[in-house]
């Protein structure tokens, strides 16, 4: 298939998903550096409540309405996460698990309850569970791309501060950086990316798009700036190849394929990544023992 043969729908889906993939990778790298990977999952699972709630309140099913509901719910879920952590002495992992479980349960209950309240057209909402990429329209894709560009711009603006907060929180706060503001922006961005990823890969898989690319990118570089870009590229490549595979055969859902491609890229990085890949580390280890064998070098190992 050459570019000229690409159908309108393939192009629309590719553009939409590529934008989501790239931006998720970029935003995800901040999130992973700040050790907030699971916050994305909490936000993702909370979105279902928002989708169902938006439909219940407005009676509309267009993407914008539902996604606005999802953003509100994702932010609310993250707010609850922070509150639970602060007010009770629950640890981060337990608090996240609580938010995931409660919000996902509430979302599923709402969606499955819609017919009982006399809403016939609720069948479509279940698509947000696993995504429904193939049905993206040009308008949807433009919307996703615009939000993606906005998210990337915000990351570019706060990258320096966010890096400082991620690596040395106490130094950052000692020098007067408002740590909580940076944290709120990072987590807010994650919430937005998760919501944008909803139509593409669905609530269950969307965290993978935020987490896998930066973790894979980390195997290629030690520099934050490079990490952010490489992570975005990995997200983009995963998105486009997932779409390509899905377009090649009947009845292949796009969302899961995107996530699978991302995992494959991670596996490849794990083996050949020049920074922390298995091969690189083995080589470094060999060099070290070689050196040790030849000259008795004091303190001859690098940090």
């Amino acid at each position: 298939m050459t570019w000229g043969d690409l159908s309108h729908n393939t192009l629309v889906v590719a553009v939409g998903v590529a934008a989501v993939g790239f931006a998720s990778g970029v935003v995800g790298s901040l999130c992973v550096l700040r050790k907030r990977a699971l916050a994305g999952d909490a936000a993702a699972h909370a979105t279902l409540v928002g989708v169902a709630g938006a439909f219940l309140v407005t009676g509309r099913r267009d993407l914008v309405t539902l996604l606005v509901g999802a953003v509100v719910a994702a932010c609310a879920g993250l707010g609850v996460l922070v509150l639970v952590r602060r007010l009770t002495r629950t640890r981060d992992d337990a608090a996240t698990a609580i938010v995931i479980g409660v919000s996902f349960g509430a979302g599923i209950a709402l969606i499955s309850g819609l017919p009982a309240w006399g809403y016939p057209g609720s069948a479509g909402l279940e698509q947000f569970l696993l995504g429904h990429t193939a049905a993206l329209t040009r308008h949807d894709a433009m919307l996703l791309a615009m939000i993606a560009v906005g998210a990337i711009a915000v990351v570019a603006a706060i990258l320096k501060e966010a890096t400082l907060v991620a690596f040395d929180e106490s130094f950052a706060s000692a020098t007067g950086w408002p740590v909580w503001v940076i944290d709120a922006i990072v987590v807010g961005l994650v919430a937005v990316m998760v919501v944008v990823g909803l139509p593409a890969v669905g609530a269950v898989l969307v965290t993978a798009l935020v987490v896998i690319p930066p973790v894979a990118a980390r195997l290629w570089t030690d520099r934050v700036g490079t990490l952010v870009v490489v992570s975005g590229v990995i997200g983009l490549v995963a998105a486009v190849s997932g779409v390509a595979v899905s377009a090649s055969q009947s009845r292949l859902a796009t969302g899961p394929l995107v996530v699978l491609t991302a995992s494959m890229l991670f596996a490849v990085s794990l083996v050949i990544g020049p920074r922390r890949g298995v091969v690189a580390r083995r080589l470094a280890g060999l060099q070290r023992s070689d050196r040790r064998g030849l000259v008795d070098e004091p303190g001859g190992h690098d940090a």
Partner: protein
Amino acid sequence: MPWRLLCVVAVASALGCGGSRPMPTGGVPRVVATTTVVADLVRQVAGDRVEVDCLMAPGIDPHSYKPTPRDADRLASADLVVAGGLHLEGKLAAILERLAARRHVVLVGETLPADRLIEAGGGLFDPHVWFDADLWSHAPPAVAEALGSLDPSHAVEYRDRATDYAERLRALDVRVRERLATIPVDRRVLVTAHDAFRYFGRAYDLEVVGVQGTSTESEAGLADINRLVDLVVSRRLPAVFIETSVADRSVSALREGAAARGHEVRLGGTLYSDSLGTADGADTLVGAIEANLTTIMAGLEGTR
């Protein structure tokens, strides 16, 4: 000790409910139907001799309908249960199967001539049998028989009404065939949201293509959308259709894809598929098929 006694009583009364039971004490028999289509069938045969309780409201998609505990109660307390069968009610199938051991359950689709069912792969059959009006005309007798054994004093009446209704269905069959025959051959393609119209297509010589598979549970991949756009554009189809019980986002994507290739395809309108309507007329199967016929004719007949 009283506890154990209670258990024995409970088991005994549960057993007592089993088997074919004659009429309930006083009152009219209560029949629970799963979908609006089946409920209509029961009403046509029973008239107002029985109380028909329909589990799914109009517009509900039976493939993804999840039974509530209250539904289970309604089913368990019915004198007769009538369902579409052939895995139409995907998530009710297990309950219906268990119920069949204790209650009289009619799975309408499974009473029809097996050689006229359309295979849907995996040893299953396409459950959307009611759109072939002639095939559906074989359904009333089975319902009449079940009603007759429940309420023997009116058995003859049920049988007469069943015969009468079957005749009306056959007349409808002829009418639909005649009208659709006027659509030019190259435009006889019905593109809908999900594959609910294969019987309709076979009976009335229309090529039928669903964006989703036979059940609404499967999802259209990108390749499926692309294939449909090709079909719509190459055949210059004037219209595609949506259904009352299925989401229409895939259909929007399909229309947009065709438009990008210079072929405007209209939204032909909404078809009744797995559920009947509430509008006057469309709340019976005959009315819904007539309404579909009007919609399809208007969509495919237009010169484009």
